[in-house]
């Protein structure tokens, strides 16, 4: 969108999109801000200043919550998925039988002249309910697929909606300089060691140099900034991920990502037949 310079006669405080963006990301210092916005730029910088000790005071309590939640949670995860498919199958079978029942009852369907899929479905219903399914004449096995397996929706899940995930234009650079100093310093120190080479790119390096008051001052600035004992541990191996990790969905959307495949009755209605209509021949 072509930008025209703000017309001073119209609204001296109007901002074009780019300037607005640069103010919000902290790229414009008070000295660089448009007229009337120096104080605003300073205010925004103050909201994003480095953490204060009282803001970091609750860490122990948070770790206690993590400990409390981690252990028992894993035991529960495995069970839920097993239940869903069975429920779904019974639903489909029940629906498919509506037509058979209209023609004379489950028992008749189990033995009578109905298509094998419905007969098998009737038998499985009777088995579930506890009645003995009558043996079919000639003891034929069911050649065709049952409606249950044919209609069963695939067990894969759709990916998470990702609505809050990757917006195409969103460069969430997280450039609140105060709060990100720790990250910048860690990357700088890691690069200095030249072991795993987590180097800063030019603009980040420049920002860090500005903060430190000079390129030669970055090292001592970062030493002071990082809390004691919190130097990046480059050779520490993280523990392996939990084995029962469902590994699905993208966390970008809801605060409570759903677990397990969505339970639907899939082709629930399709077994219905109008009374009097003859069933399709096999």
């Amino acid at each position: 969108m072509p930008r025209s310079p703000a017309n001073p006669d119209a609204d001296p405080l109007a901002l074009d999109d780019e300037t607005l963006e640069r103010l919000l990301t902290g790229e414009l210092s008070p000295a660089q801000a448009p007229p009337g916005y120096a104080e605003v730029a300073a205010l925004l910088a103050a909201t994003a200043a480095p953490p204060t000790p009282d803001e970091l005071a609750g860490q122990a309590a948070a770790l206690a919550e993590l400990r409390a939640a981690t252990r028992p949670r894993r035991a529960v995860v495995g069970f839920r998925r097993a239940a869903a498919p069975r429920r779904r199958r019974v639903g489909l079978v029940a629906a498919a039988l509506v037509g058979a029942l209209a023609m004379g009852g489950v028992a008749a369907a189990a033995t009578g002249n109905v298509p094998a899929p419905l007969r098998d479905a009737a038998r499985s219903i009777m088995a579930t309910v506890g009645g003995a399914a009558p043996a079919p004449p000639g003891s034929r096995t069911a050649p065709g697929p049952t409606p249950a397996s044919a209609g069963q929706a695939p067990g894969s899940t759709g990916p998470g909606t990702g609505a809050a995930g990757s917006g195409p234009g969103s460069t969430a650079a997280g450039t609140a300089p105060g709060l990100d100093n720790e990250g910048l310093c860690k990357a700088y120190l890691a690069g200095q060691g030249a072991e795993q080479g987590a180097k800063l790119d030019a603009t980040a390096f420049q920002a860090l140099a500005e903060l430190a008051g000079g390129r030669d001052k970055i090292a001592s600035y970062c030493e002071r900034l990082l809390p004691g004992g919190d130097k990046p541990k480059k050779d520490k191996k993280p523990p392996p991920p939990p084995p029962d990790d469902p590994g699905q969905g993208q966390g970008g959307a809801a605060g409570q990502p759903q677990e397990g495949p969505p339970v639907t009755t899939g082709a629930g209605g399709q077994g219905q037949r109008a009374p009097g209509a003859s069933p399709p021949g096999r």
Partner: protein
Amino acid sequence: MIGPEFEDVLRAAAGGDEEAFGRLWRDLQPRLLRYFRVVSPAVAEDLASETWLGVIRGINRFRGNEPAFRAWVFTIARHELLDWRRRAARRATEDLPANGLLEQAAPDDPAASALEYLSTQAALAEVATLPPDQAEAIVLRVVAGLGVDRVAAIMDKRPGTVRVLTHRGLRRLAERLGSDQIRGVV
């Protein structure tokens, strides 16, 4: 911001590693507190704690890079906010100082030295006097460091709307704080 190590840190934290989780916590907790101090000051710490419970519950299933993770955490935070608003009989505004920054800067100081008096809490209090949507949009962009599209998804608005909200909010702040030479039409 964690930076290049983020994926390792996330995986470790999801596995229960306390040092890794601590790093995520230290990066995000101040931002969460400041967000809640603007949108729900009376219960800022409570809602931040509730947010972390939600993070702990879901972290094993989260997949994504660092900005996506931050956006996810703030989505949880917003749900906590909305739940609280539904439960609360009225918004708690009694914590906000009446004039925010204006009390702190000497009136005849040049703008440059007045800026030295800005503290984070005063700045947040000033933002909190804006209309709620404008305040929230600004905090999510500036303090949470999220891009327009992610903020839009979190607030359930269009990106264009988020831009307008932040523009109006900053403009209002400029009218209130700006130096005398340039003033908007009131």
